[in-house]
């Protein structure tokens, strides 16, 4: 008996008698073939009291440098936004935290209505009429969008901008290898998807085209033009969006995008070293019945009360099995709850204010950084909350120096882009004030200078 089980010796005796066996062992002996029974104990440490588990996990946490421990400008797909306290409370309520997927709608109206509200919020955000109730996270959502295109039009070619998050391109490639699609990557030019190469790559066999907004370098793409280029092709136009700027950036639904996906972490979810968060997945009406994942719908009960159910389930694996639109089952309901609560907390005006604030602070930071010796712009495109610069010094070494000063200046682009070995990607959130930016400028300037001196001295 552990602290989570309740079978006392008296219980055990009574239960065995009721079952009609003489021992617990007998239950297993009668079912598990002798050859596959584990004889010894698992090679795992002894169980611990709660307080010691806490102490151990705290000790591990202390060995990480979190966004509480440094002034961080690291983004590149996940961002240190402030998570309002109401979200902790609501996610922590047993009624949201512990139920399964709402298979019994009569006792799951809370979760189902949250899904419905979430779908509405995402639909509003993207200006697309259809949203599901969440997928795993951003990068796999991109792969899932390509799969939707695959089952929708059967074309074997996916055109993807290199402005799409490297992890999303990787996930796409991994999945496409399964069902045998070709993936063509389009280079960036001046920080955005090369429009000519993009247009050229799209042909009658192109099932999907995929770009990211803003792209991985922080640049705002001309989404309308990119979508327009695919107009004559059979391709499903997929845009992967950062939701935070959508208060001020033209939404996918107004740009000719068919399927908009994205990483939902920024909407009220913690960084959590990469997950759990959620992916959103929205589309035009045409793709409603090709959507992966759960969808909640409004209906009424036998007494005429308004209610909500999981709907269009004939798309799903538990009904359609090998003919399903996706294999997804457990998704990210609780994280999507955080998402809709966050959007409601921000509210209609707040989302815009947040976008404008980021726009201004990002501009301020970009101007200040490129004014430093040894720092220059990697591109000149409009940016909203993240931008790329080039360093005239070893990027990793500069980052290391900055971290020693308590500032994490961002992401070394060379980790993912051979073409930008000197690139640094700097991200803002509303938690990075002007004071923090000024500190970044000071620390980064010093680090670049020191690194150049060191290299100069060595050579």
């Amino acid at each position, binding site marked *: 008996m552990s602290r989570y089980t309740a079978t006392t010796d008296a219980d055990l005796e009574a239960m065995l008698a009721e079952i009609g066996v003489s021992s617990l062992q007998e239950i297993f002996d009668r079912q598990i073939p002798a050859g596959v029974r584990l004889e010894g104990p698992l090679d795992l440490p002894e169980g611990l009291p709660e307080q010691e588990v806490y102490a151990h996990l705290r000790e591990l946490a202390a060995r990480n440098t979190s966004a509480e421990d440094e002034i961080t400008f690291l983004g590149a797909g996940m961002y240190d936004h402030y998570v309002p306290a109401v979200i902790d409370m609501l996610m922590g*309520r*047993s009624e949201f935290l512990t139920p399964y997927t709402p298979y019994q709608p009569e006792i799951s109206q809370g979760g189902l209505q949250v899904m419905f509200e979430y779908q509405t919020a995402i639909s509003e955000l993207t200006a697309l009429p259809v949203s599901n109730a969440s997928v795993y996270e951003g990068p796999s959502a991109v792969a899932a969008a390509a799969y939707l295109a695959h089952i929708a039009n059967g074309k074997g070619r996916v055109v993807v901008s290199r402005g799409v998050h490297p992890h999303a391109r990787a996930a796409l490639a991994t999945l496409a290898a399964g069902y045998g699609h070709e993936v063509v990557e389009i280079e960036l030019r001046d920080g955005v998807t090369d429009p000519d190469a993009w247009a050229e790559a799209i042909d009658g066999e192109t099932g999907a085209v995929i770009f990211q907004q803003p792209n991985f370098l922080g640049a705002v793409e001309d989404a309308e033009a990119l979508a327009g280029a695919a107009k004559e092709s059979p391709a499903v136009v997929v845009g992967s969006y950062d939701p935070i700027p959508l208060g001020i950036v033209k939404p996918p639904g107004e740009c000719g995008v068919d399927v908009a996906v994205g990483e939902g972490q920024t909407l009220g979810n913690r960084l959590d070293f990469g997950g759990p968060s959620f992916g959103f997945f929205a589309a035009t009406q045409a793709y409603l019945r090709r959507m992966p994942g759960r969808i909640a719908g409004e209906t009424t009960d*036998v007494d005429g009360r308004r209610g909500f159910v999981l709907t269009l389930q004939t798309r799903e694996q538990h009904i359609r099995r090998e003919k399903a639109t996706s294999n997804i089952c457990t998704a990210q309901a609780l994280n999507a709850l955080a998402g809709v609560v966050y959007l409601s907390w921000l509210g209609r005006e707040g989302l815009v204010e947040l976008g404008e604030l980021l726009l201004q602070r990002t501009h*301020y930071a970009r101007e200040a950084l490129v004014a430093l010796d040894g720092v220059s712009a990697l591109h000149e495109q409009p940016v909203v909350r993240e931008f790329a610069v080039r360093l005239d010094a070893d990027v990793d070494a500069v980052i290391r120096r900055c971290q020693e000063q308590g500032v994490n200046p961002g992401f070394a682009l060379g980790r993912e882009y051979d073409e930008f070995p000197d690139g640094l990607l700097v991200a803002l959130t509303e938690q990075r004030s002007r004071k923090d930016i000024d500190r970044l400028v000071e620390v980064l300037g010093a680090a670049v200078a020191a690194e150049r001196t060191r290299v100069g001295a060595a050579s």
Partner: protein
Amino acid sequence: MSTINDNVLHGDPGVEAHEPSHRVPVGGEVASPLQREAAVTIFEKGAKGRRAFTAPRLDVPEADGEQLLPTALRRREPPRLPEISEPELVRHYVNLSKRNFDLDSGFYPLGSCTMKHNPRLHERVAALPGHARLHPLQSAEHSQGALALMHNLEHALGEVAGLPHVSLQPSAGSHGELAGVLLTKAYHEDRGETRTKVLTPDTAHGTNPATVTMAGYEVVKVGTNPDGGVDVDDLRAKADTDVACLMLTNPNTLGIFDANIEEIAEIVHAVGATLYYDGANLNAVMGLSRPGDMGFDIVHFNLHKSFTQPHGGGGPGAGPIAVSDRIEPYLPRPVIVREGDAFRLDEDRPKSIGKLRGFQGNYGCFVRSYAYICSLGAEGLKDASETAVLNANYLLARLRNLDVADRLPLAFGELCMHEFVLSGAPMKRDLGIKTLDLAKRLLDHGYHPPTVYFPLLVDEALLIEPTETETRETLDAFAVAVAAVLREAEDDPELARNAPYTTPVRRLDEAGAAKRPVIRQPL
């Protein structure tokens, strides 16, 4: 034969009826507390200009916004998000939460879902800023704690699976399945083989065949034998060199441990296929029997089942996979590498299938599951599985001894592992109520019903998984409730057919919802 006392047997507190001296007055205006609240969405609340958010001050010199983001790229109208004060926001969602049933409130024997207790310790440790506010791209040097945790968890899961290599990356069970089948493909392709089919038993969960399709294979179904295990002859007949993999759940979704598992493994391996273990039912065998020892090549775990990640009303979860040596080169990247006392992420994996998603997986779930394993240790995990199986067999026996068995017979076998399947066919025939009706009537008794109509091969199936964290008293009370529904149906089957009565809403028009989908609020 009952050895427990009569109070427990007959005194189900869940249905001890009080006959109120004043019912809600007939024609009165006030329905039961939850039913009286009409569903109102957050978009229908609030008022123009209200807000819960206060924006930080603009603390930098203001530049011309049009300059920074030209109109052509700008949104014209802000999305019509709710406009609501914080108190309204809190009340809205707190009240919505009350329209949910949950595991902290009552028994939730939803078969195949392992609704075990979710310790609150796990929420506490996952919320520590060192975990919760750690950026996924933080350098290895600055994330040693997280990498050590993942490394330790990999070790523990590998040990439970009996397989040496683990990737924590997949986001859920089905994602793990996809990883597993893609690993199989990579493995065969690396050997220059092209295979086209994947075998799945007819007891398989829907994610199995759906995964097979997504991975570009053809699904071939394998039958079930009278004992509830794989029909070995059918398997032998279908296992040829076109077969890439057999996906198996063991114990399967009937709660049956396959007696022929060793032979099955032999057959599959003989044709060069891989054997995939759907770990959704791992809660039956932790520390008792290991998939690796049974011959499985690839295993997925549902951390949200056996390892206490709360289900969250449909996620998040995590679906790590464990694999044998021969599959290891193809694991998703990055993998965690230990060098002395230090850990790093290795992306340089030329044979890897690549990535299934961003970053390192659902780390927050890893923290919880790791905490669970630390709490239980080897003995505790074994105790968990033993007790899960004990509880299932006890509940099965209780139902049998309450004479429920002739209406709801066990579909296969005599004993079960951690769950069991009853068939509602005799009940439907004799009493005129379907498994669905029984399930809905159980809602009035305050229970979450078992899984219904799954697995598919059992007529009117009722799949019951009590889990190890329930008390004997709870199992007793549930058995009494099931018996009570059957007894009541003998007199009046309409009671069950029209149930539930006491829930926030009653039976919903699902067909209508699908026919005319309203999947967002019109604004």
